[in-house]
């Protein structure tokens, strides 16, 4: 490797202090330190240092993302080819066909994300005269993974630019940002281009053929279109009672819990497979790079909220059955236009109960909530971002639990934002310093109390 080192040393010469391209040193340093850990030695403090540095930490997160990414590539291709070829199951698509197709769809997203993001990072590093931070290695991969596969590249590029410029560099760069940069990108796209992000055709490549609309399960649940548009194989005979009683199988005909857990469903590039995300979570937890407290807290919060909604959904369901039995409304009315019925014929608490009974997100079993949409991906890879998360141990528990809690709350209560987890994490990003403040204040108060006690002792002594 000596020749490589010598070549690098030669290439670095014009960038040395006092030389022609001194200003651009951060750029060459970024490449150099990527290839070789530098020969810097300690000068003060501890004379020896642990082997872990930020590069290693960030690369570990990238490693943890790989299973979900590979699966995402396959799933993106499989979902497309399955509708294109009119197959009966996603699994009928030959593996390599699906993977290659998916890679062709996903790789441009990754390339655009890295090129745009890193260019901005390099410019800022050179402008500010500091080294290029490794944070974007993760952000750059996360962003394409949480976007729909059909997002126009220019929209992705704009979202990345917004996230890096406004979400990160405006606050001083890696380590200083308040919001998770990858989620900032998605939130930007979500609010700037809602048709592309919350529409029902974008989640599967060219998802507008007859067989599949390309809608996500959550989108379907939120809009109440559970009658078979999703899988193509579903019939119109999904009765209300079946829908609300669904416990072992999904409300969506043709898609069961196994499919949702494995990830054979439409969705953002890499958020669909709970299994792959769990593998990533295990890597993050085993390497201590991701906080298990936040992950477990998020799951607990999600489960509790899911159970609460399931309980109220059950109440509503009983009420609807009563209404139908008493002949006040018909099953058709319930199935076709519950909101309008409620508005016309009922009021107050009755209308709320009717809404609870007919909102499929209320009745969606709590454990299935955890495997659809990006809740798991969000909790494992977004909420654990150490910069924007709570930093104290107690704070991490509170932060995690609230993310799960609010994630489902937003998802279920507001059908316009079925991907509530994204907003929940951003919301808690903003509140993380407040959570930490109160946790730390507890420690401060303990010290103040001790001081008071000590003073009493001194006086009585």
């Amino acid at each position, binding site marked *: 490797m000596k020749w490589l080192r010598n070549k690098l040393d030669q290439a670095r010469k014009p960038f040395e202090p006092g030389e022609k391209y001194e200003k651009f040193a951060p750029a060459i340093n970024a490449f150099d330190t990527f290839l*070789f*850990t530098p020969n810097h030695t300690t000068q003060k*403090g501890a*004379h020896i240092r642990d082997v872990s540095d*930020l590069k*290693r930490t960030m690369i570990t997160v990238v490693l943890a993302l790989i299973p979900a990414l590979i699966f995402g590539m396959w799933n993106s291709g499989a979902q497309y080819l399955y509708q294109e070829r009119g197959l009966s199951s996603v699994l009928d698509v030959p593996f390599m066909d699906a993977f290659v197709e998916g890679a062709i769809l996903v790789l441009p997203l990754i390339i655009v994300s890295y090129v745009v993001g890193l260019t901005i990072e390099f410019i800022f590093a050179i402008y500010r005269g500091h080294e290029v931070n490794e944070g974007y290695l993760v952000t750059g991969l996360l962003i394409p993974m949480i976007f729909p596969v059909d997002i126009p590249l220019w929209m992705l590029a704009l979202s990345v630019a917004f996230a890096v410029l406004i979400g990160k560099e405006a606050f001083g760069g890696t*380590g200083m940002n308040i919001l998770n940069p990858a989620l900032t990108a998605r939130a930007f796209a979500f609010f700037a281009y809602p048709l592309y992000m919350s529409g029902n055709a974008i989640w599967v490549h060219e998802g507008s053929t007859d067989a599949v609309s390309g809608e996500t399960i959550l989108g379907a649940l939120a809009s109440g279109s559970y009658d078979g548009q999703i899988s193509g194989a579903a019939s119109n005979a999904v009765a209300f009672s079946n829908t609300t009683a669904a416990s072992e199988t999904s409300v969506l005909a043709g898609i069961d819990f196994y499919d949702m857990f494995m990830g054979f469903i439409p969705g953002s590039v890499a958020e669909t497979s709970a299994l792959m995300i769990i593998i990533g979570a295990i890597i993050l937890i085993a*390497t201590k790079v991701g906080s298990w407290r936040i992950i477990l807290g998020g799951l607990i919060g999600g489960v509790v909220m899911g159970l609460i909604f399931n309980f109220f959904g059950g109440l509503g369901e009983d009420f609807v059955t009563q209404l139908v039995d008493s002949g006040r409304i018909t099953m058709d009315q319930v199935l076709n236009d519950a909101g309008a019925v409620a508005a016309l014929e009922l009021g107050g608490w009755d209308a709320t109960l009717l809404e609870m009974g007919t909102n499929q997100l209320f009745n969606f079993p709590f454990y299935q909530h955890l495997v659809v949409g990006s809740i798991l991906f969000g909790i494992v890879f977004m909420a654990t971002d150490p910069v924007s998360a709570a*930093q104290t141990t107690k704070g991490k528990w509170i932060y995690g639990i609230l993310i799960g809690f609010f994630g489902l709350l937003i998802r279920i209560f507001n059908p316009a934002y079925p991907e509530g987890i994204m907003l929940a994490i951003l919301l808690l990003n903003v509140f993380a310093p407040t959570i930490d403040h109160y946790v730390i204040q507890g420690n401060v108060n303990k010290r103040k109390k001790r001081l008071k006690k000590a003073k009493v002792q001194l006086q009585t002594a």
Partner: protein
Amino acid sequence: MSKDIRVRKGLDLKLKGVADKSIVDAPRSSVYAIKPLDFHAVVPKLVHKEGAKVKAGEAIFYSKYDEPVKFVAPVSGTISEVVRGAKRRILEVRITADAVDEHVDFGKMDPNTADAAAVKTRILEGGCWPFIIQRPYDIVASSEDTPKSIFISVYTTAPLAGDVDFIVSGKKEAFQAGVDALSKLTSGDVHIGVGKDSKLGSIANAVIHKVKGPHPAGNAGVQIHKIDPINFGEKVWVVAAEDVATIGNLFLTGQFHGERTVALAGSEVADADRKYYRTIIGANVSTLVSNVNTNETRIISGDVLTGDKLDNNQFLNFYHNTLTLIPEGNEYALLGWLPFTRNNIPSISGTSLSWMKGGRSKVDTNLNGEERALVVTGEMEEVLPMDIYPMQLIKACMAGDIEKMENLGIYEVAPEDFALVDYINTSKLEAQEVIRLGLDLMITEVG
């Protein structure tokens, strides 16, 4: 009143090059030096000029703002040179030693029968006061104070550091006399933290605490935090175990014998040389190690986590009982950031498999990365066994927010307590330096 302390958080670094437990006499140094910079926040006023003859135990300078605190010559000889730095700051006072020491005789004194004032005066005039370190601030104690308690740690946990229990168990009588003397100076107790198998568990006039756990359990700061934490306005003193024996010796013999038992340790020391050497405070390192290529080997006065970098022919720090030699790490590592590589370096990170590797490691001075913003959270808490938020305290110190620093416990810590934070920190932060600057700010602002 004994209270056992069990520390769970921390990290024992198992490094190659532990000193064998045998004590030999080091050759006598021709020149000794007392370095005012070893006494943090002390402004020295010289007593003698260059060329003056001094006896061992005779004051060579005193503290400008606390005149009774004298810094004495460790040997008899001639003040050959006063080395000055920028703005004429005194860096070293060098003494060319006589062949045989002549001591100032202060007269014997029994600390048990003498009154507190007499004991204090004796320690001050006998040159032993600089051994007493005050917390908060980690500085030489003020001669006007009475601390709420005094702490002595006889439990060594720092990597490769000289085992003070081993050093002091041979000086038990002097150690007891030192404890007797110190117990006169406090309104509270003298607390001694000992290891499980310590031979010093029967010392009188003190409260003995059995301490167990990984580094930094042996740090006085951690023991203070667990036993009698410092509140605003309170002062606690800390004395190193061998220095307690030196104080005791002052009372037993009436003379200042600045003996220092130094463990010569580290992977770069030849096996045969790795042992304990009986020498005198301020000795030249050349008496312990022959000319070293400092491009390849780092000479550290002290342990690898808190010591000072030295060159050939420089002098031991006043307080250090360890001289460590480890390899310089000024080499590149190809793709050194790859997870699960370089597992030879002990690590708390899960991205390293160092926990699978048994035995002791040879670690060099490479930074293993570059300095970055504080990103990873929760790791500092793993190695600081105190009820303190280290990251927040460090940030408060960086921001110079005095009220926050006070609230977060700055009075309870010394830079050495953050040595492991230095070691494990992913962002390669200089935590000890930040804490030192924070403490300095407190000294100037709060006093």
